[in-house]
């Protein structure tokens, strides 16, 4: 931008605004809060390395336990009281949900590959795509028609 441009000259010549009086105190307070926070309340990036490694291992172990061990929990243990029984029932529930999702996936896969002729499959996909596109366009049209005062107006120049 040329310095001969009056607007550019005007804008570039403006002095800076004064920062609010309380900004410095705010920043110091935020820094103090961050410094005082224990490591487990900071973001994962700032955790000590051993804690990061332990956390990742624990997550992996938990997932493995849920996946492999959940379905093998004897039903009698679910009747146990206390924390152990509660943990076992959670484990069982999560494992059952995963197993159900797996069965549903397998069933759908079998239906699509063996039961429905491929033309049907393409037809269904085409229909779903068309309905989705129609819904999307209707949404866009409604937004254009009725959403003229939304914040997005700012970006439609």
């Amino acid at each position, binding site marked *: *931008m040329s310095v001969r*441009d*009056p*607007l*550019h000259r*005007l*804008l*570039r*010549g*403006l*002095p*800076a*605004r*004064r*920062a*609010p009086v309380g*900004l*410095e105190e*705010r*920043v110091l307070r*935020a*820094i103090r809060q*961050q410094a005082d926070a224990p490591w487990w309340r900071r973001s994962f990036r700032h955790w000590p390395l051993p804690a990061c490694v332990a956390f990742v291992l624990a997550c992996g172990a938990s997932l493995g336990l849920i996946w492999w061990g959940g379905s093998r929990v004897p039903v009698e243990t679910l009747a146990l009281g206390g924390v152990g029984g509660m943990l076992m029932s959670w484990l069982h529930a999560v494992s059952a949900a995963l197993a159900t999702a797996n069965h549903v996936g397998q069933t759908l896969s079998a239906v699509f590959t063996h039961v429905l002729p491929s033309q049907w499959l393409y037809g269904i996909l085409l229909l779903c795509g068309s309905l989705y596109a129609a819904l999307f366009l209707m*949404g*866009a049209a409604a*937004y*254009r028609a009725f*959403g003229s005062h*939304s*914040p*997005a*107006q*700012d*970006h*439609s*120049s």
Partner: protein
Amino acid sequence: MRDYQDMVFTTAARLSGNDSQAEDIAQEVFVRAYQNFESLRTSGSAGGWLKTVATNLAINHHNRYRRRWRFFSELRRVDAESDDEELEWQGPDDLLQELSDEERRERVDAALKRLPDAQRIPLVLFHFEELPYQDIADRLNVSLAKVKTDIRRGRATLATLLQADI
């Protein structure tokens, strides 16, 4: 911090058009500066670093908010104006020159706040940060044509607002 807080706050306020948001951004900038204190102390370009972080945070904030609306709001066609069209100033050459620096600053900042985000942000990046069009388009994730159109419209709106205030 005292040396730079006005600059950081001004950058954030002009980009965001909102003082409380600008204060949040300025706070975040200085907290990050504290986290990078060692490298900043020796780099000798703390001012540039702070300005860049303030600009980036303001743009990120804006982009995050905009993403939700973007698809629909940008369906409208960007007018096919010539890329090479000159940015013509539609006001007098000596606009606001009779005012003191502080009065002029207040008038312009108030007018900037009244611009829509889509015009104010590219205009601020272009005139205050002196970024080229392509950089602005990349950072805002919009087309080059839209940036040029938005800046042109922003300038026209700003001219109208400033002259209306006289």
